[in-house]
């Protein structure tokens, strides 16, 4: 293999997992630049940054979170369709802990009027968050058990929680949409510290995920199990436990996303919260270059993928496309992206950029 310097770096860039997602993002932002130059304007108010770019980051927080968790699941060769429903469950749990009047918890009369008080919460914030995350992780573990131990197909196994989950979320709050008045909680979704607060949470979860997958052997095992289950077994990897932790973490991420989403709208809306988000999350991961069959993954690329989706949506709003029509555009973007990743197109691109076909090393006959 000839290795002249320029070709080598060019290939390294194009072959990196981050290339296509960043390219897609750049294309969308370029499109914005042409159609709406004001898109890139950033204002500062009281030390906080505002603008369309910031909007993309803020509104994409939930999908970025879901994408992080979903990446690990897809890398094991599976998928988790229930993340939207788990978001709803998490929101219901959090809301009911802060405001349990709905389920008949009797508060002393003098406290009743405090329900609407932004400083009131029935349970302390740390407890609310802890319990919510535990519940959502348990949901993830449930999925993991079905997939890894009961050997049910992932799409089917997570479909069950997807259907039943919203019912469970409604059950928790007795069907009522609980309003959340507690300010510190609402700050999670609405607050700003230079940048939107939710962004810091996404960054935190990303760091946790990175530590979990790249600073321990878990990441390598996930990839190994996703690429070749049998070889991994022969090497002593316990595939079932690996899958379990992937699904559990996905549930955890969905819980965090549920907290942020419900804090954002200050309601626990079991029917609508996170509706169809799982599809966005899967798409983010696919854009990020992780194959649905499993194997190599990149958390950062999935996050960029999520931003691509969000940027598409925000751009559409910015140039005035009616809200509901955005869905159609999203469908087209999916098609475009999928084509970009389809085998034939990738081979075409490779041939154009002059990369030679790899020696397959396969077919050593018998």
């Amino acid at each position, binding site marked *: 293999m000839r290795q002249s310097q320029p070709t080598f770096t060019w290939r390294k860039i194009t072959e990196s997992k981050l290339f296509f997602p960043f390219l897609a993002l750049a294309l969308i932002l370029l499109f914005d630049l042409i159609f709406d130059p004001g898109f890139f304007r950033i204002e500062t108010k009281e030390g906080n940054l505002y603008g369309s770019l910031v909007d993309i980051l803020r509104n994409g927080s939930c999908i970025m979170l879901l994408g992080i968790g979903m990446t690990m699941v897809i890398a094991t060769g599976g998928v988790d369709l229930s993340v939207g429903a788990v978001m709803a469950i998490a929101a219901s749990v959090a809301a009911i802990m802060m405001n349990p009047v709905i389920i008949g918890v009797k508060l002393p009369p003098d406290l009743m009027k405090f329900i609407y008080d932004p400083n009131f919460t029935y349970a302390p914030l740390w407890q609310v968050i802890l319990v919510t995350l535990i519940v959502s992780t348990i949901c993830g573990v449930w999925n993991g058990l079905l997939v890894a131990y009961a050997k049910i*197909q992932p799409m089917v196994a997570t479909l069950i929680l997807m259907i039943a989950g919203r019912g469970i979320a409604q059950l928790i709050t007795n*069907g009522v949409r609980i309003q959340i008045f507690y300010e510190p909680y609402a700050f999670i979704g609405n607050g700003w510290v230079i940048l939107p607060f939710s962004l810091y949470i996404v960054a935190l979860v990303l760091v946790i995920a990175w530590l979990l997958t790249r600073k321990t052997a878990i990441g390598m095992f996930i990839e190994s199990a996703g690429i070749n289950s049998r070889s991994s077994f022969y090497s002593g990897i316990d595939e079932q436990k690996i899958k379990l932790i992937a699904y559990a973490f996905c549930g955890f991420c969905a819980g965090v996303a549920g907290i942020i989403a419900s804090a954002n709208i200050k309601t626990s809306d*079991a029917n*609508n919260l996170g*509706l169809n988000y799982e599809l966005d999350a899967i798409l983010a991961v696919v854009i990020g270059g992780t194959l649905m069959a499993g194997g190599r993954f990149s958390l950062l690329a999935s996050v960029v993928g999520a931003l691509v989706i969000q940027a598409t949506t925000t751009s559409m709003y910015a140039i005035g496309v009616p*809200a509901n029509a955005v*869905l159609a555009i999203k469908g087209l973007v*999916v098609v475009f992206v999928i084509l970009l990743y389809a*085998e034939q197109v990738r081979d075409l691109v490779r041939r154009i950029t002059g990369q030679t076909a790899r020696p397959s090393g396969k077919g050593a006959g018998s």
Partner: protein
Amino acid sequence: MIQKISTLVANNRRFLPLSATIAMFFIAYALGAVFADGMRDPQVFFNLFRTSPFYLISAIGMTFVILTGGIDLSVSGVVALTTVASAALLRAGWDPWVVMLLMLGMGMALGAIMGAFITYLKVQPFIATLAGMWFARGLCFFISDDAISINDRIFRILGQTKILIPGLADPVTKQGDYISILVIVELVVLAVAIYIAHYTRFGRTVYAIGGNEQSARLMGLPVNRTKVLVYTLSGFCSALAGITLSIYVLSGHGLYARGFELTIIASVVMGGTMLSGGVGYVFGTLFGVLITGLIQTLIQFNGQLSSWWTNIVVGALTLVFIGVQSLLAAQKIRQLASKKFQSQAKERVTPRQVGARNRQMLLVGGGALVVIVLAVLAIGGAQNTTRGSGASSSTPIAATCQLKPFREEHAASLLKAGAIIAYERNGGSNCIDELYAIYPDGRIVGDDGTRKIEKQVTPADVEKLLADITGRGWFTEEMYTTWHVPCGQCFSYDLTVSYKGQAKTVKAVDGGTDAPANYWQVVSTINGVIPHFTSTQ
């Protein structure tokens, strides 16, 4: 004797899952009839068919796709798009039959495109049909943001014609049990689908692909062409389902059929079709849809359980079915592996052992369903207090229980006469129409079209009620009207509050996902105050 039966069972082994599903349906129905009087009305059975055409037709298309081992998530989008597009075209004056044909063509075209992506570009079915769903639903809103109502004569006739059941209805008074034209349509589609699945090469190729796609190719079957056709067929069915939906509700809206595909997939799975492909019967899908409808009916007859229990029960049942399927599949694999060893060890697995295990698994599945159904009904039966919402009613319903118009002029006149709250509630399983007026002096008057009922509370109570309602943001912009297809036994509400110079009317439909959060709190508060009509008899 036992030997004969077990041979019979062994020879028709492949029909066991289907028979189990059918048996479960009848057992559950029987149990329902035992515990709830209203269930014994034959109209309830016919209503299962009357409210299912869009589900069943769509599920039939989905069955074919799943049989090839694929999946079609675009059904809800195509259904919604069909309703909106037809409504728009009809409003513009197009001929209804042309519109219907056009819609079918559109569905087929969408399906074919997705099929091509899946077959030739090797895109995963999941992703391709997902994109299709977004695209289709998005197109709805290019056409119209709001619901468009349909006033076309043909559509009305198709939707509202009652076909009386001979023997159970009186043709003279036009009272009695009936079905609609759409039921005929769905049964015809079912029959055609069964024919295609079992008597055409296309259908058999579908099964072959699901069994082993590579083998099917090696056997020389037209795999690619069949795969594209199967998605085209599913698109056709989704469009047809959309047409039946628009006939049923006489309107079109992009928000319809949300979450539709999940129910469809669950129905197909419960009908015995395996998601891995190759196994299943279209006939089973019929029962899958009926069971889903039955669950909803049982829950609503119960009256105590809220509609979200449907989701939980459907989810749990899907789990049971899938669990059984997985167990049987894993067993098969183990059997084959052990067969290989045992053939080398010169021993054989006796067929009786195999049959026994199958039977065990199905007993487990059936038992689970029966237990769930019993639990649902027991909870309801134990708390059988009379409420306005028809827990027990055995008179056949005279009028169609479709969307009733609100008595808006009547409400307006009540308000003019001094009422501060005019609250109307339509629908439910008994097809009621109750209009209440609450006056500042504490008088509450209710009127259900035939009877009047009165209750007296203190003016202070009324003040408190009004303050509560205002406090929940009634007069803000956050309270808005929504409307969507009502579920079979859901209520529609029309509530006007006039207070301190402001008057606002907000309408909504039960079981919805789109009404503002506080609306339901307001409604439940009002429900707590007003007097209730006892069950009609």
